[in-house]
Protein backbone atom coordinates (compact mmCIF):
# COMPACT_ATOMS: atom_id res chain seq x y z
CA UNK A 1 0.00 0.00 0.00
CA UNK A 2 1.44 3.36 -1.11
CA UNK A 3 0.57 6.30 1.10
CA UNK A 4 0.28 9.91 -0.08
CA UNK A 5 0.95 11.40 3.34
CA UNK A 6 3.95 11.21 5.61
CA UNK A 7 3.85 8.22 7.95
CA UNK A 8 3.87 10.52 10.96
CA UNK A 9 0.26 11.51 10.18
CA UNK A 10 -0.71 8.01 11.35
CA UNK A 11 -0.27 9.39 14.88
CA UNK A 12 -3.44 11.43 14.42
CA UNK A 13 -5.38 8.19 13.97
CA UNK A 14 -6.85 7.05 17.26
CA UNK A 15 -6.91 3.34 16.40
CA UNK A 16 -3.29 3.49 15.27
CA UNK A 17 -2.26 5.14 18.53
CA UNK A 18 -3.93 2.23 20.33
CA UNK A 19 -1.85 -0.20 18.28
CA UNK A 20 1.34 1.68 19.21
CA UNK A 21 0.54 1.65 22.91
CA UNK A 22 -0.12 -2.10 22.93
CA UNK A 23 2.66 -2.99 20.47
CA UNK A 24 4.86 -4.93 22.88
CA UNK A 25 2.02 -7.34 23.68
CA UNK A 26 1.39 -8.08 20.01
CA UNK A 27 2.27 -11.48 18.54
CA UNK A 28 4.52 -11.59 15.46
CA UNK A 29 1.49 -12.53 13.41
CA UNK A 30 -0.41 -9.45 14.49
CA UNK A 31 2.64 -7.27 13.94
CA UNK A 32 2.97 -8.60 10.39
CA UNK A 33 -0.69 -7.83 9.87
CA UNK A 34 -0.13 -4.23 10.96
CA UNK A 35 2.87 -3.86 8.62
CA UNK A 36 0.73 -5.13 5.75
CA UNK A 37 -2.42 -3.14 6.54
CA UNK A 38 -0.63 0.18 6.95
CA UNK A 39 2.15 -0.43 4.42
CA UNK A 40 4.90 0.09 7.01
CA UNK A 41 8.37 -1.35 7.60
CA UNK A 42 9.50 -2.40 11.11
CA UNK A 43 11.77 0.67 11.05
CA UNK A 44 8.76 2.95 10.41
CA UNK A 45 6.88 1.49 13.34
CA UNK A 46 9.90 1.92 15.59
CA UNK A 47 10.21 5.63 14.69
CA UNK A 48 6.47 6.16 15.18
CA UNK A 49 6.59 4.41 18.56
CA UNK A 50 9.46 6.64 19.71
CA UNK A 51 7.57 9.73 18.58
CA UNK A 52 4.35 8.54 20.20
CA UNK A 53 5.98 7.69 23.54
CA UNK A 54 8.03 10.90 23.44
CA UNK A 55 4.87 13.00 23.19
CA UNK A 56 3.40 11.51 26.34
CA UNK A 57 2.86 14.63 28.48
CA UNK A 58 3.19 14.24 32.21
CA UNK A 59 0.71 16.43 34.05
CA UNK A 60 1.73 18.23 37.18
CA UNK A 61 -1.22 17.57 39.49
CA UNK A 62 -2.03 20.34 41.89
CA UNK A 63 -2.01 19.32 45.55
CA UNK A 64 -5.55 18.61 46.71
CA UNK A 65 -5.35 21.40 49.29
CA UNK A 66 -4.64 23.99 46.59
CA UNK A 67 -7.57 22.84 44.48
CA UNK A 68 -9.86 22.95 47.52
CA UNK A 69 -8.68 26.46 48.28
CA UNK A 70 -9.36 27.60 44.70
CA UNK A 71 -12.78 25.92 44.84
CA UNK A 72 -13.69 27.59 48.14
CA UNK A 73 -12.67 30.94 46.74
CA UNK A 74 -14.86 30.35 43.70
CA UNK A 75 -17.87 29.42 45.79
CA UNK A 76 -17.27 32.46 47.94
CA UNK A 77 -17.08 34.74 44.90
CA UNK A 78 -20.33 33.21 43.65
CA UNK A 79 -22.24 33.95 46.84
CA UNK A 80 -20.78 37.44 46.94
CA UNK A 81 -21.97 38.28 43.46
CA UNK A 82 -25.49 37.03 43.92
CA UNK A 83 -27.89 39.53 45.39
CA UNK A 84 -31.47 38.69 46.47
CA UNK A 85 -32.07 35.59 44.36
CA UNK A 86 -35.59 35.26 43.01
CA UNK A 87 -36.30 38.97 42.90
CA UNK A 88 -33.55 39.44 40.34
CA UNK A 89 -35.92 39.63 37.37
CA UNK A 90 -38.15 42.13 39.13
CA UNK A 91 -35.17 44.30 40.07
CA UNK A 92 -33.88 44.07 36.54
CA UNK A 93 -37.17 45.41 35.13
CA UNK A 94 -37.07 48.27 37.58
CA UNK A 95 -33.48 48.99 36.62
CA UNK A 96 -34.32 49.08 32.91
CA UNK A 97 -37.25 51.41 33.59
CA UNK A 98 -35.06 53.65 35.71
CA UNK A 99 -32.28 53.82 33.15
CA UNK A 100 -34.77 54.93 30.47
CA UNK A 101 -35.89 57.84 32.62
CA UNK A 102 -32.31 58.65 33.54
CA UNK A 103 -31.28 58.70 29.89
CA UNK A 104 -33.93 61.35 29.09
CA UNK A 105 -33.09 63.44 32.13
CA UNK A 106 -29.37 63.45 31.46
CA UNK A 107 -29.67 65.32 28.12
CA UNK A 108 -30.38 68.77 29.65
CA UNK A 109 -27.64 68.15 32.19
CA UNK A 110 -25.11 67.54 29.42
CA UNK A 111 -26.25 70.64 27.49
CA UNK A 112 -26.01 72.77 30.62
CA UNK A 113 -22.54 71.44 31.51
CA UNK A 114 -21.28 72.04 27.98
CA UNK A 115 -22.67 75.57 28.09
CA UNK A 116 -20.90 76.30 31.35
CA UNK A 117 -17.66 74.72 30.20
CA UNK A 118 -17.37 76.49 26.89
CA UNK A 119 -18.99 79.89 27.36
CA UNK A 120 -19.05 80.92 30.96
CA UNK A 121 -15.86 79.60 32.50
CA UNK A 122 -13.66 79.17 29.48
CA UNK A 123 -11.16 81.59 31.03
CA UNK A 124 -10.97 79.97 34.42
CA UNK A 125 -9.89 76.40 33.78
CA UNK A 126 -8.77 74.94 37.09
CA UNK A 127 -5.23 73.62 36.84
CA UNK A 128 -5.45 69.96 37.70
CA UNK A 129 -2.52 68.32 39.31
CA UNK A 130 -1.15 65.82 36.77
CA UNK A 131 -0.97 62.22 37.90
CA UNK A 132 2.03 60.03 37.20
CA UNK A 133 1.52 57.00 34.96
CA UNK A 134 3.99 54.12 35.02
CA UNK A 135 4.16 51.47 32.31
CA UNK A 136 6.17 48.30 32.81
CA UNK A 137 7.18 45.96 30.04
CA UNK A 138 7.34 42.44 31.46
CA UNK A 139 10.37 40.29 30.67
CA UNK A 140 9.74 38.54 27.37
CA UNK A 141 7.55 41.29 25.89
CA UNK A 142 8.09 44.48 23.92
CA UNK A 143 5.44 47.12 24.57
CA UNK A 144 4.53 50.19 22.53
CA UNK A 145 2.80 53.18 24.02
CA UNK A 146 1.75 56.68 23.06
CA UNK A 147 2.47 59.60 25.40
CA UNK A 148 -0.16 62.35 26.00
CA UNK A 149 1.65 64.52 23.41
CA UNK A 150 1.33 61.71 20.78
CA UNK A 151 5.03 60.78 21.00
CA UNK A 152 5.51 57.10 20.28
CA UNK A 153 7.62 54.86 22.50
CA UNK A 154 8.81 51.25 22.21
CA UNK A 155 9.60 49.79 25.62
CA UNK A 156 11.99 46.84 25.66
CA UNK A 157 11.52 43.75 27.85
CA UNK A 158 12.10 44.33 31.56
CA UNK A 159 11.95 48.14 31.29
CA UNK A 160 9.67 50.74 32.80
CA UNK A 161 8.79 54.34 32.05
CA UNK A 162 6.82 56.96 33.97
CA UNK A 163 5.28 60.22 32.81
CA UNK A 164 2.46 62.59 33.85
CA UNK A 165 -0.97 61.96 32.31
CA UNK A 166 -0.95 65.61 31.14
CA UNK A 167 2.18 67.50 30.15
CA UNK A 168 2.20 70.96 31.70
CA UNK A 169 4.82 73.56 32.61
CA UNK A 170 7.94 74.23 30.56
CA UNK A 171 9.19 70.67 29.91
CA UNK A 172 7.80 67.25 29.10
CA UNK A 173 9.36 65.16 31.85
CA UNK A 174 9.75 61.40 31.44
CA UNK A 175 11.83 58.98 33.48
CA UNK A 176 13.09 55.61 32.29
CA UNK A 177 14.78 52.50 33.60
CA UNK A 178 15.84 49.92 31.06
CA UNK A 179 15.71 50.47 27.32
CA UNK A 180 13.33 52.46 25.11
CA UNK A 181 13.14 53.85 21.59
CA UNK A 182 11.54 57.30 21.29
CA UNK A 183 9.84 59.03 18.39
CA UNK A 184 9.24 62.35 20.12
CA UNK A 185 6.82 64.88 18.65
CA UNK A 186 8.39 68.26 17.82
CA UNK A 187 7.62 71.09 20.26
CA UNK A 188 10.14 73.95 20.44
CA UNK A 189 8.40 75.59 23.41
CA UNK A 190 8.27 72.45 25.50
CA UNK A 191 11.33 70.17 25.21
CA UNK A 192 11.13 66.58 26.38
CA UNK A 193 13.55 65.65 29.15
CA UNK A 194 14.24 61.96 29.76
CA UNK A 195 15.87 61.15 33.10
CA UNK A 196 17.92 57.96 33.24
CA UNK A 197 20.04 57.36 36.29
CA UNK A 198 22.02 60.56 36.90
CA UNK A 199 21.72 61.66 33.28
CA UNK A 200 19.19 63.96 31.61
CA UNK A 201 18.52 63.73 27.88
CA UNK A 202 16.94 66.91 26.47
CA UNK A 203 15.21 66.79 23.07
CA UNK A 204 12.91 69.00 21.01
CA UNK A 205 11.59 66.33 18.70
CA UNK A 206 13.67 63.50 17.28
CA UNK A 207 14.14 59.76 17.01
CA UNK A 208 16.54 58.25 19.51
CA UNK A 209 17.26 55.18 21.60
CA UNK A 210 18.20 55.07 25.30
CA UNK A 211 19.69 51.96 26.88
CA UNK A 212 20.18 52.02 30.66
CA UNK A 213 19.55 48.71 32.36
CA UNK A 214 20.44 48.91 36.07
CA UNK A 215 22.41 45.68 35.74
CA UNK A 216 24.87 47.44 33.44
CA UNK A 217 26.38 50.59 34.88
CA UNK A 218 26.30 52.52 31.61
CA UNK A 219 23.76 54.71 29.83
CA UNK A 220 23.85 54.52 26.03
CA UNK A 221 22.10 57.17 23.95
CA UNK A 222 21.87 56.69 20.18
CA UNK A 223 20.56 59.51 18.01
CA UNK A 224 18.84 58.61 14.74
CA UNK A 225 17.74 62.08 13.62
CA UNK A 226 17.30 65.60 15.06
CA UNK A 227 19.37 66.82 17.97
CA UNK A 228 19.80 65.80 21.59
CA UNK A 229 21.62 67.41 24.52
CA UNK A 230 22.94 65.49 27.52
CA UNK A 231 23.37 67.02 30.95
CA UNK A 232 24.15 65.56 34.33
CA UNK A 233 23.56 66.52 37.93
CA UNK A 234 26.98 65.11 38.70
CA UNK A 235 29.04 67.69 36.83
CA UNK A 236 29.96 69.30 33.52
CA UNK A 237 31.16 67.73 30.27
CA UNK A 238 34.39 69.34 29.01
CA UNK A 239 33.50 72.46 30.98
CA UNK A 240 30.08 72.78 29.37
CA UNK A 241 26.70 72.16 30.98
CA UNK A 242 25.31 70.41 27.95
CA UNK A 243 26.80 67.93 25.53
CA UNK A 244 25.27 67.73 22.03
CA UNK A 245 25.06 64.50 20.00
CA UNK A 246 24.98 64.36 16.20
CA UNK A 247 22.72 61.97 14.27
CA UNK A 248 24.31 58.54 13.87
CA UNK A 249 26.41 58.92 17.01
CA UNK A 250 26.16 56.71 20.08
CA UNK A 251 27.24 58.14 23.40
CA UNK A 252 28.10 55.82 26.27
CA UNK A 253 28.09 57.39 29.73
CA UNK A 254 29.79 55.35 32.43
CA UNK A 255 28.13 56.14 35.75
CA UNK A 256 31.09 55.01 37.83
CA UNK A 257 33.96 56.69 36.00
CA UNK A 258 31.66 59.49 34.68
CA UNK A 259 33.32 59.16 31.30
CA UNK A 260 31.60 60.00 28.06
CA UNK A 261 32.55 57.91 25.06
CA UNK A 262 31.39 58.93 21.56
CA UNK A 263 31.21 56.45 18.69
CA UNK A 264 29.79 56.64 15.18
CA UNK A 265 28.25 53.32 14.28
CA UNK A 266 25.26 52.04 12.34
CA UNK A 267 22.35 53.05 14.63
CA UNK A 268 20.57 49.85 13.57
CA UNK A 269 22.78 47.94 16.03
CA UNK A 270 21.07 49.81 18.84
CA UNK A 271 17.48 50.00 17.58
CA UNK A 272 17.06 46.55 15.98
CA UNK A 273 15.39 45.14 19.12
CA UNK A 274 12.21 47.11 18.48
CA UNK A 275 11.71 45.21 15.20
CA UNK A 276 12.30 41.86 16.93
CA UNK A 277 15.88 41.50 15.63
CA UNK A 278 18.58 40.56 18.13
CA UNK A 279 22.00 41.98 17.30
CA UNK A 280 25.17 41.48 19.29
CA UNK A 281 27.97 43.73 18.11
CA UNK A 282 31.21 43.34 20.04
CA UNK A 283 29.15 42.40 23.15
CA UNK A 284 30.68 40.48 26.04
CA UNK A 285 29.21 37.03 26.67
CA UNK A 286 27.68 37.98 30.04
CA UNK A 287 25.79 40.95 28.54
CA UNK A 288 24.62 38.64 25.73
CA UNK A 289 23.21 36.19 28.30
CA UNK A 290 21.56 39.00 30.29
CA UNK A 291 19.80 40.37 27.24
CA UNK A 292 18.67 36.88 26.15
CA UNK A 293 17.34 36.31 29.66
CA UNK A 294 15.25 39.51 29.51
CA UNK A 295 14.13 38.91 25.96
CA UNK A 296 12.91 35.33 26.49
CA UNK A 297 11.86 35.60 30.14
CA UNK A 298 14.07 32.74 31.22
CA UNK A 299 16.80 32.49 33.85
CA UNK A 300 20.27 31.91 32.44
CA UNK A 301 23.16 31.16 34.76
CA UNK A 302 26.77 31.41 33.65
CA UNK A 303 28.54 28.75 35.68
CA UNK A 304 32.04 29.61 34.53
CA UNK A 305 32.97 33.31 34.86
CA UNK A 306 36.06 32.89 32.68
CA UNK A 307 33.68 32.96 29.69
CA UNK A 308 32.13 36.28 30.74
CA UNK A 309 34.49 38.57 28.85
CA UNK A 310 34.50 36.79 25.49
CA UNK A 311 33.28 39.19 22.81
CA UNK A 312 30.93 38.17 20.03
CA UNK A 313 29.11 39.42 16.93
CA UNK A 314 25.83 37.88 15.83
CA UNK A 315 22.42 38.69 14.36
CA UNK A 316 19.25 36.68 14.96
CA UNK A 317 15.73 37.05 13.66
CA UNK A 318 12.76 34.92 14.81
CA UNK A 319 14.95 32.29 16.51
CA UNK A 320 14.17 30.52 19.76
CA UNK A 321 16.56 30.89 22.70
CA UNK A 322 17.55 27.26 22.22
CA UNK A 323 18.58 27.82 18.65
CA UNK A 324 20.46 31.04 19.48
CA UNK A 325 22.52 29.34 22.20
CA UNK A 326 23.17 26.35 19.96
CA UNK A 327 24.45 28.62 17.15
CA UNK A 328 26.62 30.66 19.56
CA UNK A 329 28.12 27.46 20.98
CA UNK A 330 29.44 26.59 17.51
CA UNK A 331 32.00 29.40 17.73
CA UNK A 332 32.49 29.68 21.50
CA UNK A 333 33.62 26.83 23.77
CA UNK A 334 30.50 26.43 25.93
CA UNK A 335 27.57 24.06 26.26
CA UNK A 336 24.22 24.49 28.00
CA UNK A 337 21.48 22.45 29.60
CA UNK A 338 18.08 22.95 31.14
CA UNK A 339 17.67 22.71 34.86
CA UNK A 340 14.37 21.35 36.20
CA UNK A 341 12.17 24.34 37.12
CA UNK A 342 11.39 24.79 40.81
CA UNK A 343 7.84 24.04 41.72
CA UNK A 344 6.94 26.18 44.70
CA UNK A 345 4.66 24.85 47.47
CA UNK A 346 1.68 26.93 46.26
CA UNK A 347 1.66 24.98 43.01
CA UNK A 348 3.02 27.69 40.73
CA UNK A 349 5.79 26.99 38.26
CA UNK A 350 9.03 28.95 38.42
CA UNK A 351 10.78 30.11 35.28
CA UNK A 352 12.77 27.55 33.34
CA UNK A 353 16.50 27.89 33.83
CA UNK A 354 19.38 27.36 31.43
CA UNK A 355 22.85 26.70 32.79
CA UNK A 356 25.88 27.57 30.67
CA UNK A 357 29.15 25.73 31.32
CA UNK A 358 32.57 25.70 29.72
CA UNK A 359 33.24 22.93 27.26
Amino acid at each position, binding site marked *: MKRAEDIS*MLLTDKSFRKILSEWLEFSDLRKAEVYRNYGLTPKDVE*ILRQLFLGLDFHL*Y*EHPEANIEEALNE*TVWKLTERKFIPGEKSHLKKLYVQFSKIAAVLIIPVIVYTAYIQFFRFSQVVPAEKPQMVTVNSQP*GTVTTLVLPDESKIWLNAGSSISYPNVFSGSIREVSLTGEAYFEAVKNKEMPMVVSVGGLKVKVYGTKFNVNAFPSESTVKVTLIEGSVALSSKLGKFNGKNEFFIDPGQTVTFNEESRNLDVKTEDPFYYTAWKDGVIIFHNHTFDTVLKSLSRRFN*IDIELKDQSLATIRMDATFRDESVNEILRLLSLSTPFSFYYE*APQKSPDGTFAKSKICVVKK
Partner: protein
Amino acid sequence: MAQLAGYNDDTFLWNEFKAGDKTCFNTLFRRYYSELYYYGIKNFSDPDLVKECIQEVFIRIWETRESLGNVENVRAYLIVSLRRIILAQKKKVMLQQHIGLRQVENSPFLFDLNEFEKHEEISDGVRKILLAAINSLTRKQRELVMLFFYYELSYAEIAEVIGITVPALRNLMYRTLIHLRESIGEKSLESMNKLFFLFFSSFSVKKV
Protein backbone atom coordinates in the same frame (compact mmCIF):
# COMPACT_ATOMS: atom_id res chain seq x y z
CA MET B 1 -21.93 0.90 41.91
CA ALA B 2 -24.23 2.55 39.40
CA GLN B 3 -23.80 5.82 41.24
CA LEU B 4 -20.03 5.47 41.08
CA ALA B 5 -20.11 4.91 37.34
CA GLY B 6 -22.27 8.00 37.06
CA TYR B 7 -19.74 10.16 38.86
CA ASN B 8 -17.02 9.08 36.45
CA ASP B 9 -19.10 10.10 33.48
CA ASP B 10 -18.76 13.72 32.36
CA THR B 11 -22.13 13.80 30.64
CA PHE B 12 -23.85 12.63 33.82
CA LEU B 13 -21.97 15.23 35.89
CA TRP B 14 -22.78 17.96 33.38
CA ASN B 15 -26.51 17.23 33.35
CA GLU B 16 -26.73 17.03 37.13
CA PHE B 17 -24.76 20.23 37.50
CA LYS B 18 -27.08 21.97 35.05
CA ALA B 19 -29.98 20.86 37.20
CA GLY B 20 -28.31 22.69 40.10
CA ASP B 21 -26.38 19.91 41.87
CA LYS B 22 -23.53 21.58 43.75
CA THR B 23 -21.67 18.30 44.41
CA CYS B 24 -21.37 17.70 40.68
CA PHE B 25 -20.18 21.27 40.16
CA ASN B 26 -17.46 20.69 42.79
CA THR B 27 -16.48 17.38 41.20
CA LEU B 28 -16.10 19.02 37.79
CA PHE B 29 -13.96 21.75 39.36
CA ARG B 30 -11.66 19.27 41.11
CA ARG B 31 -11.41 17.05 38.05
CA TYR B 32 -10.41 19.78 35.59
CA TYR B 33 -8.54 22.33 37.73
CA SER B 34 -5.03 20.91 37.21
CA GLU B 35 -5.54 20.38 33.47
CA LEU B 36 -6.92 23.88 32.93
CA TYR B 37 -4.13 25.40 34.98
CA TYR B 38 -1.50 23.57 32.98
CA TYR B 39 -3.06 24.67 29.70
CA GLY B 40 -3.28 28.27 30.90
CA ILE B 41 0.21 28.51 32.30
CA LYS B 42 1.82 26.96 29.22
CA ASN B 43 0.07 29.34 26.85
CA PHE B 44 -0.25 32.55 28.85
CA SER B 45 2.52 32.27 31.49
CA ASP B 46 0.83 34.31 34.23
CA PRO B 47 -0.07 32.19 37.31
CA ASP B 48 -2.35 34.71 39.03
CA LEU B 49 -4.22 35.56 35.86
CA VAL B 50 -4.72 31.88 35.01
CA LYS B 51 -6.01 31.02 38.48
CA GLU B 52 -8.42 33.92 38.49
CA CYS B 53 -9.70 33.09 35.01
CA ILE B 54 -10.30 29.41 35.85
CA GLN B 55 -12.47 30.56 38.74
CA GLU B 56 -14.25 32.93 36.38
CA VAL B 57 -14.97 30.03 33.98
CA PHE B 58 -16.68 28.07 36.73
CA ILE B 59 -18.51 31.11 38.09
CA ARG B 60 -19.90 31.81 34.64
CA ILE B 61 -21.04 28.26 33.92
CA TRP B 62 -22.74 28.13 37.31
CA GLU B 63 -24.50 31.45 36.81
CA THR B 64 -25.67 30.57 33.30
CA ARG B 65 -26.24 26.84 33.91
CA GLU B 66 -29.93 26.98 33.03
CA SER B 67 -29.26 28.31 29.54
CA LEU B 68 -26.26 26.04 28.81
CA GLY B 69 -26.74 23.43 26.10
CA ASN B 70 -25.66 19.81 26.13
CA VAL B 71 -21.92 19.63 25.79
CA GLU B 72 -20.32 16.75 23.92
CA ASN B 73 -16.84 17.16 25.40
CA VAL B 74 -16.74 18.95 28.74
CA ARG B 75 -12.95 19.28 28.66
CA ALA B 76 -12.99 20.99 25.26
CA TYR B 77 -15.79 23.28 26.38
CA LEU B 78 -13.87 24.35 29.48
CA ILE B 79 -10.62 24.95 27.59
CA VAL B 80 -12.35 27.10 24.96
CA SER B 81 -14.05 29.10 27.74
CA LEU B 82 -10.80 29.55 29.65
CA ARG B 83 -8.93 30.77 26.60
CA ARG B 84 -11.66 33.30 25.77
CA ILE B 85 -11.79 34.63 29.32
CA ILE B 86 -8.00 34.95 29.60
CA LEU B 87 -7.79 36.86 26.32
CA ALA B 88 -10.67 39.15 27.31
CA GLN B 89 -9.09 39.74 30.71
CA LYS B 90 -5.70 40.59 29.20
CA LYS B 91 -7.34 43.07 26.84
CA LYS B 92 -9.19 44.70 29.73
CA VAL B 93 -6.03 45.06 31.80
CA MET B 94 -4.19 46.64 28.89
CA LEU B 95 -6.97 49.16 28.27
CA GLN B 96 -6.97 50.11 31.93
CA GLN B 97 -3.24 50.76 31.95
CA HIS B 98 -3.15 53.11 29.02
CA ILE B 99 -5.12 53.68 25.84
CA GLY B 100 -2.95 52.78 22.90
CA LEU B 101 -0.86 50.33 24.84
CA ARG B 102 -0.29 47.16 22.89
CA GLN B 103 1.42 43.92 23.78
CA VAL B 104 3.54 43.18 20.75
CA GLU B 105 4.77 39.78 21.68
CA ASN B 106 4.41 37.16 24.34
CA SER B 107 7.04 34.49 24.54
CA PRO B 108 5.65 31.10 25.58
CA PHE B 109 7.13 28.90 28.28
CA LEU B 110 9.59 26.24 27.23
CA PHE B 111 9.01 22.61 28.08
CA ASP B 112 11.47 20.51 30.02
CA LEU B 113 12.09 16.78 30.33
CA ASN B 114 10.09 16.46 33.58
CA GLU B 115 6.97 17.36 31.69
CA PHE B 116 7.01 14.13 29.72
CA GLU B 117 6.49 10.60 30.96
CA LYS B 118 9.66 8.53 31.07
CA HIS B 119 9.47 5.39 28.96
CA GLU B 120 12.19 2.80 29.10
CA GLU B 121 11.94 2.17 25.39
CA ILE B 122 13.22 5.61 24.40
CA SER B 123 16.77 6.61 25.17
CA ASP B 124 17.60 9.89 26.94
CA GLY B 125 19.31 11.04 23.75
CA VAL B 126 16.11 10.71 21.72
CA ARG B 127 14.08 12.36 24.50
CA LYS B 128 16.42 15.34 24.57
CA ILE B 129 16.39 15.73 20.80
CA LEU B 130 12.60 15.52 20.74
CA LEU B 131 12.37 18.08 23.55
CA ALA B 132 14.58 20.51 21.62
CA ALA B 133 12.39 19.95 18.54
CA ILE B 134 9.23 20.64 20.57
CA ASN B 135 10.77 23.79 22.05
CA SER B 136 11.68 25.03 18.59
CA LEU B 137 8.05 24.82 17.42
CA THR B 138 6.00 27.98 17.11
CA ARG B 139 3.58 28.87 19.88
CA LYS B 140 0.59 27.75 17.83
CA GLN B 141 2.20 24.42 16.93
CA ARG B 142 2.98 23.69 20.56
CA GLU B 143 -0.55 24.52 21.59
CA LEU B 144 -1.78 22.15 18.88
CA VAL B 145 0.49 19.29 20.03
CA MET B 146 -0.65 19.73 23.64
CA LEU B 147 -4.33 19.90 22.79
CA PHE B 148 -4.18 16.90 20.48
CA PHE B 149 -1.89 14.47 22.31
CA TYR B 150 -2.41 15.49 25.88
CA TYR B 151 -5.95 16.81 26.06
CA GLU B 152 -7.06 14.49 23.22
CA LEU B 153 -9.36 17.02 21.60
CA SER B 154 -10.65 16.44 18.07
CA TYR B 155 -9.64 18.60 15.11
CA ALA B 156 -13.00 20.37 15.18
CA GLU B 157 -12.59 21.18 18.88
CA ILE B 158 -9.00 22.40 18.52
CA ALA B 159 -10.04 24.51 15.53
CA GLU B 160 -12.54 26.23 17.84
CA VAL B 161 -9.93 26.75 20.56
CA ILE B 162 -7.17 28.13 18.34
CA GLY B 163 -9.55 29.88 15.97
CA ILE B 164 -8.48 28.54 12.57
CA THR B 165 -10.23 26.28 10.06
CA VAL B 166 -10.00 22.47 10.21
CA PRO B 167 -8.11 22.14 6.86
CA ALA B 168 -5.58 24.75 8.01
CA LEU B 169 -5.24 22.89 11.28
CA ARG B 170 -4.61 19.55 9.52
CA ASN B 171 -1.98 21.27 7.43
CA LEU B 172 -0.32 22.67 10.55
CA MET B 173 -0.40 19.24 12.19
CA TYR B 174 1.20 17.72 9.10
CA ARG B 175 4.08 20.19 9.14
CA THR B 176 4.52 19.79 12.91
CA LEU B 177 4.66 16.01 12.87
CA ILE B 178 7.06 15.88 9.92
CA HIS B 179 9.35 18.30 11.77
CA LEU B 180 9.26 16.17 14.92
CA ARG B 181 9.70 12.90 13.06
CA GLU B 182 12.65 14.23 11.06
CA SER B 183 14.30 15.47 14.27
CA ILE B 184 14.35 12.01 15.83
CA GLY B 185 14.57 10.08 12.54
CA GLU B 186 18.35 9.90 12.43
CA LYS B 187 18.79 9.11 16.10
CA SER B 188 16.36 6.21 16.20
CA LEU B 189 17.83 4.85 12.98
CA GLU B 190 21.18 4.71 14.73
CA SER B 191 19.80 2.54 17.52
CA MET B 192 18.06 0.34 14.94
CA ASN B 193 21.36 -0.17 13.13
CA LYS B 194 22.92 -1.23 16.40
CA LEU B 195 20.20 -3.83 16.83
CA PHE B 196 20.79 -5.18 13.34
CA PHE B 197 24.49 -5.33 14.01
CA LEU B 198 23.94 -7.34 17.18
CA PHE B 199 21.59 -9.69 15.37
CA PHE B 200 23.99 -10.40 12.53
CA SER B 201 27.04 -10.74 14.74
CA SER B 202 25.30 -13.37 16.89
CA PHE B 203 24.29 -15.14 13.70
CA SER B 204 27.85 -15.32 12.37
CA VAL B 205 29.21 -16.56 15.69
CA LYS B 206 26.81 -19.47 15.56
CA LYS B 207 27.96 -20.34 12.07
CA VAL B 208 31.65 -20.41 13.08
